[in-house]
């Protein structure tokens, strides 16, 4: 065992080195080059065009930001985030020191630590948005998958709810938002709320808009199970639950995941719009605040947000794809 643990890192390192050198030489290099070359050219061309075109577009807040401005502002936003973190840490240490002094004088004194009251930074907003979108998406999945299974299994139920689905599916998030806001503030009344109302509003809006693709794909997947497999299930006399668990669900997993990926994409788009309109914390609010702020850097900062939104959306889809590859049998 000890020899193994001694030799393993070495051989692992060697193997890793080997893989790397393989990648950098010969046909593998050519392959990697081909795979990277065209996307790199595409990005380079886009950046050049952007760089040349941006100064031509004049707004009341100055010229449209070019790539360089955006890069600078993203560094700036990162810096602000780190500064904010430092101040927050100091704020807490100060309180702790003060509390220690008070306790030293009077051990029975009630002490508490308040959180830093500073405004959330860009990075904080990113994480708020991610949390909200995941909550909304998970809720949508929890509703859409079981409902989709019932719709797919039962022709009569399907016929009954189909018109509702068709009508609600194309509704824009902005139309739902005022209704959701009013309903949340009317029904979620609590002295010590576990969730902020703004969070709930954004989350429900995301849920309402993103559950449709999953719902429809699940029902289609469930109703399209290979009839031969259904006959196998009948011959085996599988009980309803075993039938759903062992035949229907695995068979429709690929379709469900296609729906989930579309849903997650929609959820992310909807969330930004909802946050802008509802002024609930998140990336959307960041964009709106910068727009209202109207400083000379605002446009660059909004552009940073735009790119971040796109990049996060792309990452979310990739993560879903990875999960799909782990879960689905046809990958």
């Amino acid at each position, binding site marked *: 065992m000890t020899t193994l643990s001694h030799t393993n890192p070495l051989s692992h390192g060697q193997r890793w080195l080997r893989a790397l050198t393989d990648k950098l030489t010969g046909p593998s290099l050519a392959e990697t080059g081909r795979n990277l070359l065209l996307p790199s050219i595409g990005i380079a061309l886009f950046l050049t065009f952007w760089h040349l075109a941006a100064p031509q577009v004049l707004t009341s807040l100055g010229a449209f930001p070019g790539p360089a401005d955006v890069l600078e502002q993203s560094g700036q936003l990162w810096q602000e985030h780190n500064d904010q973190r430092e101040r927050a840490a100091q704020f807490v240490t100060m309180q702790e020191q003060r509390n220690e002094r008070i306790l030293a004088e009077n051990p029975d004194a009630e002490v508490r630590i308040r959180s830093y009251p500073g405004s959330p930074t860009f990075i904080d907003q990113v994480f708020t948005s991610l949390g909200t979108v995941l909550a909304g998406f998970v809720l949508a999945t929890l509703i859409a998958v079981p409902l989709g299974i019932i719709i797919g299994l039962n022709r009569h139920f399907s016929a009954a709810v189909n018109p509702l689905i068709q009508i609600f599916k194309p509704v824009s998030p902005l139309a739902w938002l005022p209704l959701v806001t009013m309903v949340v503030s009317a029904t979620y009344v609590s002295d010590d709320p576990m969730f902020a109302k703004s969070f709930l509003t954004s989350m429900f809006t995301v849920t309402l808009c993103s559950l449709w693709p999953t719902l429809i794909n699940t029902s289609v997947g469930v109703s399209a199970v*290979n009839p031969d497999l259904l006959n196998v299930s009948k*011959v085996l*006399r*599988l009980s309803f639950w075993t039938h759903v668990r062992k035949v229907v669900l695995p068979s429709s997993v690929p379709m469900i995941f296609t729906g989930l990926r579309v849903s997650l994409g929609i959820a992310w788009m909807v969330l930004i719009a909802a946050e802008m309109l509802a002024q609930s914390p998140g990336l959307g609010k960041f964009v709106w605040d910068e727009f209202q702020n109207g400083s000379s850097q605002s446009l660059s900062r909004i552009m940073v947000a735009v790119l971040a939104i796109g990049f996060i959306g792309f990452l979310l889809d990739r993560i879903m794809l990875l999960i799909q590859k782990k879960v689905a*049998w046809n990958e």
Partner: protein
Amino acid sequence: MTKPHLELTNVQMAFDTKDGPFIALENIDLKIRKGEFVSLIGHSGCGKSTVLNIVAGLLQATRGGCVLDGHEVNTPGPERAVVFQNHSLMPWLTVYENVELAVQQVFKKSMNKKERREWILHNLKLVNMDHALDKRPGEISGGMAQRVGIARALAMKPSVLLMDEPFGALDALTRAHLQDSLMEIQQDLNSTVIMITHDVDEAVLLSDRIVMMTNGPSATIGEQLHIDLPRPRNRVNLADNPEYVHYRQAVLSFLYEKQRFPDKGGEEEAGPVVEAEAPEQEEDTPESQSKHAESPVRRIA
């Protein structure tokens, strides 16, 4: 004769279509004894699969019925295991898990975990598929998948094994190989088998009896041919066995002279006289076909 193991009596099957009822089967009477290997042969669309599905319980006859060991068949069940044309394995389960799904369902109470495992492995060994337990159906060839389908059906210990063109989708060599395996297994287990086939050689080689069906609509049993060839049968030796050739010719004559094409019953000339059972059927069939053409029941192409 003793009481038959499986009995179809006066079965009629009608499907509702928007042009009114379509009579697929009419007056099917069939008695099968235990351990008998029966092939159903006929042109496409003559309702062979419908007969099989009625025995399986996947379809309900509109008139008449099917009795197995004294019990009427009206729902599907593992005692009438089906081997489907396209193996019908769950693509997300491994070879082992596919058989396990069946064994767990059928022997949940009567076998413990270890016995079930042994029984699954035993059946996979029977079809020579114990080397690929952890492969998914997508990773093995069609012939292998069909073997697993057969193993799954055998693992249910069915009293009747129903096979719907089990080897239809396979290449000739694989098919011959699987036919030989099936013959061996059937002889070992003495199982009752009903097999649908298009293949005359397959029918003669495997069966104790060939049931030849007339063309639809209102398809029924045209002729029955008992194959009295000794077992075990060897395809190479049988190839120039005069009896084998004779049986083959009888089936071919039924299929290509008396029932040449679906819906063209009256056109053919009388073929060479072939010794076969139920000769009166020869004159009967073209007539009954033309009768159907005038009947109020509309035909579906």
